[in-house]
């Protein structure tokens, strides 16, 4: 089984797209969760990842997309995205 997927096929690493779709994301990088009342800010890269995650829940595809845009090693990129996803999950209580 894919180590990034749960038995139901959803990502074990990424927050659920259902939770992410409820977020109010401003292009300024201000993000508000209308369910938990939490807010946080993200930079341009974080904003891009968030937009992508709201539509697509495929980690390898996200890494491939980011790999084409940013000159960074695959392992470093995966580590950073997984860390970012972990922070997101914590913020939205997923």
């Amino acid at each position: 089984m894919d180590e990034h997927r749960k038995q139901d096929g959803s990502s074990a690493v990424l927050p659920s797209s259902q939770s992410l779709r409820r977020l109010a994301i401003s292009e300024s990088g201000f993000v508000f969760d209308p369910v938990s009342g939490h807010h946080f800010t993200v930079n341009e890269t974080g904003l891009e990842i968030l937009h992508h995650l709201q539509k697509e829940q495929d980690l390898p595809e996200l890494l491939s997309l980011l790999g084409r845009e940013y000159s960074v090693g695959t392992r470093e990129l995966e580590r950073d995205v997984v860390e970012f996803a972990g922070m997101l999950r914590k913020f939205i209580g997923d």
Partner: protein
Amino acid sequence: MMAPTVAITGMNARPDNPGPGVAVARCLKESPEFKGRIIGLGYDALDPGLYLREYCDAAYLLPYPSAGDEAFITSLQAIHEAEHIDVIIPCLDAELPGMVRLTPQFDEMGIRYLMPTPGQLQLRNKDRLPELASHAGIHCPEIKTVSQVGFFYQCQDEGWSYPLVVKGLFYGASIVDSADEAADAFREIAAQWGYPVLVQRVVEGEEYNLTAVCDGSGRMLGEVMMKKMAVTDKGKAWSGVSIFDQTLYDASAALIKAINWRGPLEVEVMRDHQGRYQLIEINPRFPAWIYLSAGVGRNLPLILLRLILDEATGELPDAQPGVLFIRHAVETIVPQSEFESVIMNGGQHLS
């Protein structure tokens, strides 16, 4: 809307723990639909709402609930003769039992209200919350009634450990870390609010509140939910943000249905580290942060007034999430003549 004269209690507004009355009056006065008069009712000559002419047309002092029902109704009758009160909105926990007892007299005087029955009021008492929560399918930290200070020195034998919360039946709550601290809190709360004193297990997490109006048929109308963003030393909201969480909605709706609540109320919950809501309190009145309801497009005091006056509440707009309130302290300048009038005459006209 008709032009009713509405009496509102709870005109105290100390920054660390304000009463809801001023905010309720503000919701009504600032609504273009409200054409009536507001009579502010307070218990202390330093209650600021008694001097706020932007929210109150007249203001009067009432005897404290501890003076008894007769003193209260005599005072209210005198105010009624002067002001012809159409509606009364009680805003303080401690006065609710007496107010509910006095509803037959309100009926005789032609004063309208929307209040719970004595039975409904008792069902949401702090010492009965676990039973109610269980019935409604929501978690609730264990609560115990304590009548002797010795409990705090032996509580470990009964499976209680520090920190824990010491609470009054109506008001007051302190988180204590030791038996000595608990004993001090116990004596202070007992002296101020009487017995019994309650202890509750501490729930760590974030506090969320819901306020709504209920018509006595088990329905919850116009709910507004809020997450506290900053609190005073007493744990009262200093700022908050509106939210919408279906889980909190369902839990609150189940609680209200279980007791067929009538009138305004506030449900206080903690979201623990496992993401579960734990019921902390149900307050039988609007909260002090009720002005947020007007801020999110659901003016709950106005909705309450419509229900009391048998007017249609109409379709309520969704409460907009992400709207903040930030409280601030304001000095009101009071001419000596106004203070004198409240002290010597028990009230004054402001308009």
